[in-house]
């Protein structure tokens, strides 16, 4: 399937391994990525906090660009925060024709216009709802046997439920569980899996932010997880990049690898850990990956 692909900023900045691993995994799932390289940052909620109309207009521009991609079935992103910020803007744009016209008037200078009703799915949602778990299972070359994976959903992709279309038919707040199981791994439940990683306040209250990250990492360690997997690069920054500082903030030794969702999928689909950029993580997943033979779970 062909999608208008929004990688976000951080996946091309501090977590390049996310964008890179998505590019490797997409062909194995028959996803054609048409990158929205003309689009700008979603604002991650911060620009909306600064000026709501500005955030809505910038995102309407991205949606309009996505709607221009020939043959694309929908828009896809690989960042929960982008999903949350875009869904919030889209909710306002779709809910009021007068407001939409007002925003489109600004876009008209470029000849762009957003039409209500865009479908925009995070890779996690697309994987379960479009590719399908059966089809995913059929593509697994290297099941994640013996690998105990803690899902880390974060916030933006699970709340608020109404806005994100989460209901009994679409239990999107359980999709990471389903994907881990489909890939042959064992799901580890722990208290913090749908809590905040702390990243949004890292510059405002660093101690509280690091404590949040440390608490979830510690919970996952106590639950005996080998690694975590997340659909959000910002959560990844606080859980992986900041892990040495989080350990310092709480005085607990932490050693919990955190994988991006496309990396976990890529490992099961037979890709080499290095191709997926796993060597770039601050906490190297050596405890869960045998680097000599690339067999997952064997070295633990």
């Amino acid at each position, binding site marked *: 399937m062909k999608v208008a692909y929004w990688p976000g900023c951080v996946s091309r900045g501090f977590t*390049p391994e996310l964008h890179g691993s998505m590019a490797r995994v997409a062909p194995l799932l028959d996803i054609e990525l048409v990158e929205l390289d003309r689009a700008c940052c979603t604002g*991650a909620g911060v620009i909306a906090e600064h000026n709501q109309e500005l955030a809505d207009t910038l995102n309407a521009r991205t949606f309009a660009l996505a709607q221009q991609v020939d043959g694309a079935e929908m828009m896809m992103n690989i960042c929960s925060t982008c999903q949350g910020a875009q*869904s919030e803007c889209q*909710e306002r744009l*779709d*809910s009021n*024709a007068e407001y939409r016209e007002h925003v489109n008037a600004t876009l008209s200078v470029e000849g762009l216009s957003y039409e209500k009703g865009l479908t925009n799915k995070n890779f996690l949602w697309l994987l379960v*709802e479009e590719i399908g778990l059966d089809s995913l299972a059929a593509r697994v070359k290297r099941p994640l046997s013996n690998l105990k994976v803690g899902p880390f959903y974060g916030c933006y992709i699970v709340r608020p439920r109404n806005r994100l279309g989460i209901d009994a038919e679409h239990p999107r707040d359980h999709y990471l569980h389903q994907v881990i199981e489909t890939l042959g791994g064992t799901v580890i439940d722990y208290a913090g899996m749908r809590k905040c990683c702390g990243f949004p306040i890292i510059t405002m209250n660093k101690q509280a932010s690091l404590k949040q990250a440390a608490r979830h990492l510690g919970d996952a360690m106590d639950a005996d997880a080998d690694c975590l997997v997340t659909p959000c690069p910002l959560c990844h920054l606080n859980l992986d990049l900041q892990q040495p500082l989080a350990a310092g903030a709480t005085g607990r030794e932490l050693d919990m690898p955190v994988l991006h969702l496309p990396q976990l999928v890529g490992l099961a689909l037979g890709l080499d850990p290095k191709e997926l950029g796993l060597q770039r993580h601050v906490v190297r997943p050596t405890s869960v990956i045998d680097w000599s033979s690339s067999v997952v779970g064997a070295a633990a």
Partner: protein
Amino acid sequence: MAEAHDRPAESFTIRLRRYDPQSGDAPYWDEHTVQLEPHRSVLEAILQARDRFDGSIGIRCSCRQAICGSCGVRVNGEPSLACHTHLDAAKSSSLRGGVIEIEPMGNMPVIKDLIVDMDAVHWKKIQRVTPWLLAKQPVPEREYIVDKEAMVDVTQTMACIQCGACVSDCLAMEVDPGFIGPAALAKAYRFVGDPRDDQQFERLNDLAQDPQGIFDCTHCFKCVEACPKDVNPMGQIMRLRRVAIADHDIVDVNNGERHEAAFATLVKDNGLLWEAELLPRSYGGNSWFGKFAPPAGKELLSSLPAILKALMRGKVTPMGALKPHRIPAGDLKAVQSIYEKVEGRKERYELNLYITGQDEDPAPAAHAGAIATGGAETAQVTAEQEGSNQ
């Protein structure tokens, strides 16, 4: 609903977390099976268990119709009003094979069983935000004349019934109990947004400078989900930030204003976020020179363990840190012209879904409900120019 009311009584098993701090005993779980019609509430089940099996079960309640806010508890892990949660719904959302698990709310000490100490946390925080009108002088001889729109703007916060559900699940408060929190900050907006109040700047400055004030919210949406009255406390906190920064030019000691300004500027300059520049600017000031300011240097030093590891792993390259990634020039120009047009407006245009409701023509069902449209059930007026809340 009529059909649901016709259904006969059936068995529901409730699992209660029992705890009496004065007893010296540890908390324990207690199960009771009650007979009630499925449309009856979780509160009725608790009361029946208390009446028939154990008179010592502690639960606080009053109106039994979701108005008084007394019976806040956690049902199957989620904050809820016990009187506003139907037994059939609670059974189907059970994580224990149909057994309905009921616990006291979080972030507040337990007095007994399902009763938490609201005075120790919730009411203390409400008091913190001066929850009364500080009227403009001179007070008119008769009533104040206020724009209808201005009062509609604060209606959402006035819908709060002080049940504490948002406080119970606030994730910032979980690690930082001193955080003023969602209920009290929503209450603060009720007066900041009130055109009769005389202390808008003082209120905002106080809440912005407090390290546990408006910039301590982690934007996790927990309170938005928890609120049984759609008060959207997080949304109110974001509005407090917006009014503080945009209308009053408040520069806080918590980096809140600098972070927001740096974020907006970097996206305007590059189209994409430049993370390596965002962090030092958030500490040192929103310009290229910000990184050389002492607070930025101090932060850089304290983050060295993470930065060095990131450099060693090739996660962050010196080139990547020094050079922003940018969208094509033509697109950047278009983005900048959007900034200029929108930021150049005399008044901000804000859409409050609580009061504006949904389009009359429903959206063609987006892919499998991919993006729900609207979200407000209280459509009252059309889009309006909210302006600067003066």
